[in-house]
């Protein structure tokens, strides 16, 4: 299996990446080599092997429900390009 350049463009669009034609061609080559590797892995017989959700065979530890964070808004917002009235401002998104 291999990708087409249209598929690369679609994935780039979903990831909000702007690619030039030259970059698209380059990435197509890289992605296809990865897909080649996946093709190779697909040939391994995995019948009877349970699917794995995570490479570490461990269980997730859960946290007790308690508020542990304090308000650090000023510190965090010092990093933001635009803030007003405590809100982060971003270019307008119209629904």
């Amino acid at each position, binding site marked *: 299996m291999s990708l087409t350049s249209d598929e690369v463009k679609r994935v780039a669009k*979903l990831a*909000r990446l702007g690619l030039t034609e030259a970059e698209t061609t380059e990435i197509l080559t890289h992605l296809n080599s990865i897909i080649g590797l996946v093709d190779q892995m697909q040939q391994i017989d995995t019948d009877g092997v349970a699917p794995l*959700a*995570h490479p*570490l065979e*461990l*269980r*997730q*530890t*859960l*946290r*007790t*429900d*308690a*508020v*542990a*964070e304090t*308000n*650090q*808004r000023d510190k*965090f*917002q010092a990093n933001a390009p*635009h803030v*007003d*009235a*405590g*809100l*982060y*401002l*971003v*270019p*307008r*998104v*119209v*629904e």
Partner: protein
Amino acid sequence: MYEAVIGLEVHVQLSTDSKIFSGSSTDFGGEPNTQASLIDLGMPGVLPVPNAKAFEMAVKFGLAIDAEIGQQSIFDRKNYFYPDLPKGYQISQFEKPIVGPGRVLISLEDGTEKTINVTRAHLEEDAGKSIHDAFDGMTGIDLNRAGTPLLEIVSEPELRSAKEAIAYLKVIHSIIRYLDISDGNMAEGSMRCDCNVSIRPRGSETLGTRTEIKNLNSFRFVEKAINTEINRQIEILEDGGRVIQETRLYDPDKDETRSMRSKEEANDYRYFPDPDLLPVVLDDNFISACRDALPELPEARKARYISEYGITGYDAGVLVANRDVADYFAEVANTSGEGKLAANWVMGSILAELNQTGGSITDFSVTAKQLSELIGRIKDNTLNSKTAKTVFEAMLAGDGEVDAIIEFKGLVQFTDTGTIEAFVDEVIAGNPEQVTNYRAASEDKQVKMLGFFVGQVMKRSQGRANPQAVNQILSAKLSG
């Protein structure tokens, strides 16, 4: 004729103290971004740690709807871009949700019951809020809500009308309130609903093309949006057109749904297991502890109220739908020892008043204790139904306790025959023409004509005469 096919996705905010993956507070209404930590902001290098309480609440819900519990559940990333989702993905559950197939029972208008299957319920994080109109050319983002735990409950498309959808939604609301896993406040967004709606010719087995109406936040809007959308789809088909699969928004001002085209292209979420989170494995002890902590649920309480208080199935159904109302009723019924009267007063006066004001019974101005006293005064014949109503209204207005109001307003019912007889004699003497007509009339006409005299006597007694006694004395005196 067409038949509607409806499935609901209900998002319930779980009432944990802290968020699902961080230790930030989940309190509603805080100053913007004061409850948004590095994890909620999606900063690089942070790791989410799941909140055990959210799992406990999800498991309780699963047990309450008789569902399979996913003892091993997995978190996935649902990828999409929106400014109120800083990571660029929402942590959700896709293939292995915490709650598997279950079912709820809804009551239909004709009194029959119907089982609605729940496909699944999964845990996920809520997004932040966008404020679109306050800033010139910019959108403001508040991430206090980001990371609030949500339980998304997905039904099978087994609902056939807006009414059934509302009945289902009310049962879900009732269950989460009984379990106390969410405040269920739709106006504040603690419970939100997406509706999948399609239509097909009645009798057909194939499904029509569906549309999804997003983010409805009141029972009334859910009902109106579904009906509006069903009619829109019928019109399209009648005109020979085809329904397009899309996401739509309901506009309550215009009572119409409109296409939300921006969502279409993004509808490719590229789910994959979140490498930041290991599978969550719940052992049998965890689940049995949740089971042991389950309260009495609405269905069980309904059955108990019918047998304990001798009220009808319909009344019991109305009273148990809201846990606080059910508790209030039980207190009144137990204290006054009058189940039926308690049911009548709670349904007829209190629920009617709450419906009008939109208030909650927990801060209602007449307490359960006061209503019990009022019923006590009806029982011991101090009050009749009319004067009881007067006392109730006075209590609503904050005029104080039952006995004080009765005394202050002079409402004690006249039960002694002498006083009532005096009123009756006055009325008979004052209306000679009516008396003559009455005495000349046939017996079945007399029954109707008696109402006039009763009314006159009650008027003279300022509503305080015992109506049964008035009836008896009047008929006796008139026939003599």
